[in-house]
C-alpha cells in the first residue's frame, strides 16, 4: 500500500460522513426551497423579501443574501454559506490529525523508519486529503443539484463546478493552516484548539464585516471573506479569480512553511522549545478528592470538555435568543402559507413560544450529540485498554454502566443549566418575558432525553461498540430532521412521532408527563440491556 493510499484510507470515515451528511443537507435545502418559495414570480418575490429580513439578522452566521427568489441564490446563501463552515471544520480536524494525530499514534515513526522522507510524507497526506475533499464536495454538489432538478430549477453545471473549486480551495487553506499549527505544539488536541480559535476569529472577522462593522482591509485576512467573493451561481456572478488565487497562494505558502517546520523539528516535539524548567518530581497520587468519588470522578476527568460544551452552548443560546424578536416579527406575520402553517403547527404565537420551540429543539439535538460523543468515549475505553484497567480493580461491570450513565446525566445537567441561564439573561435583557417556572421545567425535561440516549447508547456499546456511535448519531440526526420538517412540509404526525424528541413535547406551553415517563422508561430499558450486554461481553473484543 502506498503512502497516498494510506492517506486516503485515514480519511475514509470522514469522507463518507461529510459526503453523506452534506449531501442530505444539500438535498433537503434544494427540495425545501422548491416547497416553500412558491411557484410564481409574485410568491417568489414575497418569499425573497421575507428571507432577506431574516438574512439581515443572520449575517453573523451566513453570507449576505442575494437573489433569494432563485434556487441558486437561496442555496448560495442558505446552504453553501453553511457547508463552507462544515468543510472548514473537517479540514481543521484533518490537518491537525495529519500533523499530530498520526504522530501521537506512532505512525509517523513507523513511516519515516521505512526510508520515506518527511517531505514525501506530508505531500502524501496533503494529496490524500485534497482528493477526499474534492470527492466529498463534488458528491455534495451533485446531490444538491439533483434536489434542485427535482424542484424544477437545476443548477448550471459550469458555475456549480466553479462553486466547488471555491469551496475546495478554502478547505485546503484551512487544512494547510491546521497542519502548520500542528508543527508548533505537541498534541493534536492543542493544535485543534489553537487552530480552531484562530479560524473562528477569522470567521467572526468576516461576519463582523458582513454585519456592517468597519474592520477595514483586515477582512482580506479572512479566508471566508475571500471565499464569499466568489458567487458563480448568481446571475452576473463569477468566480473571483483574485480572491481564489489569493486563497490558493495562501495554501501553498502555509504548506511550504509547514513542511519546513516539519523537516526542522523533532518527531514528538514542537518547532520551538522553551528553556527547560526546573525538574520537580511527584511521587504521590493526585489530591483531587473528586477523582476518588463515584460518578464525579468521571465528570472530573472531562471537566474541560464539559466546560467547553457549556460555554459553546451558552454563546449559541445567547445568540439565538437575541434574534428572537426580529425573526418572529419577520416570519410570524409572513404571508407565505408554508411559514404561516409552520408557526401555527409549532404553536408559536409569542416570543416566548419561539424561544421554547427553536432553542429547546436545538438544545435537544446538541445534548444528544454530546451524549453520542460520550458513547464514543465508552467504546474507546474498551478499545484502548482503560476498561480492562478499571476492571482490574474490585469494580463490578454493573457499577461501570450505572456510573457512566449517571455521569452523562450530571454533565448534561451542567451544560443545560449554563445554557439556560444564558437564554434567560438574554431574553430578559431583550425584553422577552419567559415564564420562569415553565422555563425551568423545560430545561430540566431535557435530562430524560439525555438519559434515554445514554441508555440506548450503552446498550449499543455493550452489543457492538464500533457501530454504536454511528447508529446513535443517526437516531439523533434523523429524529431532529423528522421533528423540524414535519410542520414545515406538513408531513403526517406519525413521522414526527418517530423522533425521540417528540416525547419531550412542548413543556414551555403544556405538561406532557407521559412523554417524559416514556423517555425515562426507554432510558431504563436501555440501561437494563446495557447491564446484561456488559455482563456477557468479553472485554477488549
Amino acid at each position: 500500500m502506498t503512502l497516498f493510499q494510506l492517506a486516503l484510507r485515514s480519511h475514509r470515515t470522514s469522507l463518507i460522513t461529510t459526503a453523506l451528511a452534506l449531501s442530505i443537507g444539500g438535498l433537503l435545502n434544494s427540495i425545501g426551497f422548491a416547497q416553500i418559495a412558491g411557484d410564481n414570480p409574485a410568491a417568489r418575490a414575497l418569499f425573497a423579501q421575507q428571507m432577506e429580513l431574516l438574512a439581515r439578522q443572520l449575517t453573523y452566521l451566513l453570507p449576505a443574501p442575494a437573489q433569494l427568489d432563485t434556487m441558486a441564490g437561496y442555496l448560495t446563501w442558505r446552504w453553501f454559506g453553511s457547508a463552507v463552515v462544515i468543510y472548514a471544520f473537517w479540514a481543521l480536524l484533518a490537518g491537525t490529525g495529519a500533523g499530530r494525530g498520526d504522530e501521537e499514534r506512532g505512525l509517523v515513526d513507523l513511516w519515516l523508519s521505512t526510508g520515506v522522507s518527511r517531505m514525501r510524507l506530508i505531500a502524501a497526506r496533503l494529496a490524500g486529503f485534497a482528493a477526499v475533499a474534492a470527492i466529498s464536495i463534488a458528491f455534495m454538489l451533485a446531490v444538491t443539484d439533483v434536489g434542485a432538478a427535482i424542484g424544477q430549477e437545476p443548477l448550471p453545471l459550469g458555475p456549480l463546478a466553479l462553486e466547488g473549486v471555491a469551496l475546495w480551495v478554502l478547505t485546503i487553506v484551512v487544512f494547510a493552516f491546521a497542519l502548520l499549527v500542528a508543527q508548533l505544539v505537541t498534541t493534536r488536541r492543542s493544535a485543534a484548539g489553537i487552530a480552531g480559535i484562530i479560524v473562528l476569529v477569522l470567521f467572526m472577522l468576516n461576519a463582523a464585516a458582513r454585519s456592517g462593522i468597519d474592520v477595514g482591509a483586515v477582512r482580506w485576512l479572512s479566508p471566508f471573506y475571500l471565499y464569499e467573493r466568489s458567487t458563480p451561481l448568481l446571475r452576473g456572478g463569477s468566480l473571483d479569480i483574485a480572491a481564489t488565487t489569493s486563497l490558493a497562494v495562501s495554501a501553498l505558502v502555509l504548506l511550504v512553511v509547514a513542511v519546513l517546520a516539519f523537516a526542522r523539528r523533532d518527531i514528538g516535539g514542537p518547532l520551538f522549545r522553551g528553556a527547560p524548567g526546573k525538574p520537580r518530581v511527584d511521587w504521590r497520587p493526585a489530591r483531587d478528592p473528586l477523582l476518588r468519588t463515584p460518578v464525579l470522578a468521571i465528570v472530573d476527568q472531562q471537566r474541560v470538555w464539559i466546560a467547553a460544551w457549556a460555554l459553546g452552548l451558552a454563546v449559541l443560546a445567547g445568540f439565538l435568543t437575541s434574534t428572537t424578536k426580529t425573526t418572529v416579527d419577520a416570519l410570524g406575520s409572513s404571508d407565505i402559507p408554508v411559514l404561516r402553517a409552520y408557526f401555527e403547527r409549532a404553536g408559536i404565537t409569542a416570543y416566548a413560544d419561539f424561544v421554547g420551540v427553536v432553542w429547546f429543539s436545538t438544545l435537544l439535538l446538541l445534548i444528544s450529540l454530546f451524549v453520542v460523543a460520550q458513547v464514543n468515549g465508552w467504546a474507546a475505553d474498551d478499545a484502548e485498554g482503560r476498561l480492562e484497567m478499571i476492571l482490574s480493580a474490585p469494580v463490578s461491570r454493573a457499577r461501570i454502566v450505572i456510573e457512566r450513565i449517571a455521569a452523562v446525566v450530571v454533565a448534561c445537567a451542567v451544560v443545560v443549566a449554563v445554557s439556560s441561564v444564558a437564554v434567560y439573561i438574554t431574553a430578559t435583557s431583550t425584553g422577552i418575558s419567559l415564564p420562569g417556572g415553565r422555563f425551568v421545567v423545560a430545561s430540566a425535561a431535557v435530562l430524560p432525553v439525555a438519559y434515554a440516549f445514554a441508555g440506548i447508547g450503552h446498550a449499543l456499546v455493550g452489543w457492538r461498540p464500533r457501530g454504536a456511535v454511528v447508529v446513535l448519531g443517526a437516531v439523533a440526526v434523523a429524529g431532529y430532521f423528522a421533528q423540524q420538517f414535519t410542520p414545515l412540509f406538513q408531513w403526517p404526525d406519525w413521522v414526527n412521532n418517530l423522533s425521540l424528541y417528540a416525547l419531550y413535547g412542548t413543556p414551555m406551553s403544556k405538561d406532557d408527563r407521559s412523554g417524559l415517563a416514556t423517555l425515562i422508561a426507554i432510558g431504563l430499558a436501555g440501561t437494563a440491556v446495557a447491564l446484561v450486554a456488559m455482563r456477557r461481553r468479553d472485554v477488549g473484543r
Partner: protein
Amino acid sequence: MTSAISTRGLTKDYGAGHGIFDLDLSVEEGEVFGFLGPNGAGKTTTIKLLMGLIHATRGSATILGLDADRDAVPLKHRIGYVPGELPQFGGWRGSEIVAYIAGLRRDVTDNQVEAVAKRLDLDLGRKYREYSHGNKQKLALLLAFAPKPGLLILDEPTSGLDPLHQQEFYGLVRDARARGATFFISSHVLSEVEHVCDRVGIVREGHLATVGQLDQLAGMRAHRVEIEFAGMPPIERIRGIPGFEQVVVADHRVSGMFRGDFEPLLAVLASSRVTKFESREPSLEEIFLGFYK
C-alpha cells in the same frame, strides 16, 4: 499447600485454532509460577480468563477458592494485575491515574504508592502521553504492587523496562513473595522466568505443553550461535560437537542451536581462524522447534 489458582478444562475458543484449550493447571499459594510461551500461544487469553475479563467457552478457573468469573469483583481486592497491552490514558497525569484507580480499589494508601513510585523511579507528575513505554510499564507495575495484594497476575511485566529497573522488578517480586504473595507471570523470555520463578508451565498453540520445576528447563537452555570463519569451516568436526543442533552452513558461516557445555565448541574453534562469533538467547519459538522435534 492450597491452590491459589486452579483451572479445570479451561477453554476459550476464538475459532481457527486461536485461544486456549483444556487448560488444567494448579498454582500453589506462595509460589511464583511462570507461564511461558511464544507470541500468540494463548498466555494473555489465559490471564484474561483468570481476571474475569473474558468468559470461558467451557471449563472453569478457581482463584483463592472463588470462581474467577462469577466472583470477579471480590477477588480483585486480593489481586494485583499488569495487563499485556498498556492502556491509553492520554493527557492524564500519572498521579491522576493512580488517584482514580486508588479511589476504585479503596485499599491502597498514598504512602504505599509513594514507596513503590520511588523504588521504580517513576515521576507521577508527568502526563501519561509523555511517558516512555518503560515508564508506562512502571505505572502498571505500581498499580499492581502498591496495594500489596495476595496474588499478582502479571502479563509480560518487564516489557519495556531497562535492565536496571528489571532488577528492581525482581526485587519487588522477592519482597512480595517474602510476605507470602503468589505470582502468575507470563513471559516469552526464558531468562526472565529463570530469575524469579519456582515452577513453569509452557503453552504452545493454545495447549499446555508441559509443567515442571525450573531446573527442568535446563534441558531447554540453549543459545543461538553464529560463527564466521576466515577460511572454510571445519564442518565435520563442528557437526560432531555434542549439543550443537540445527547446524546450517553457508559459505564461511555456520549457525545452529547449542545446548550444554561450551568447552567442546571452543576447542574446535581454537584450531580455526574465527572472524566473528555471536551467541544469543533464542526466542521461545526457536527453542520449541528444537525441544519438541
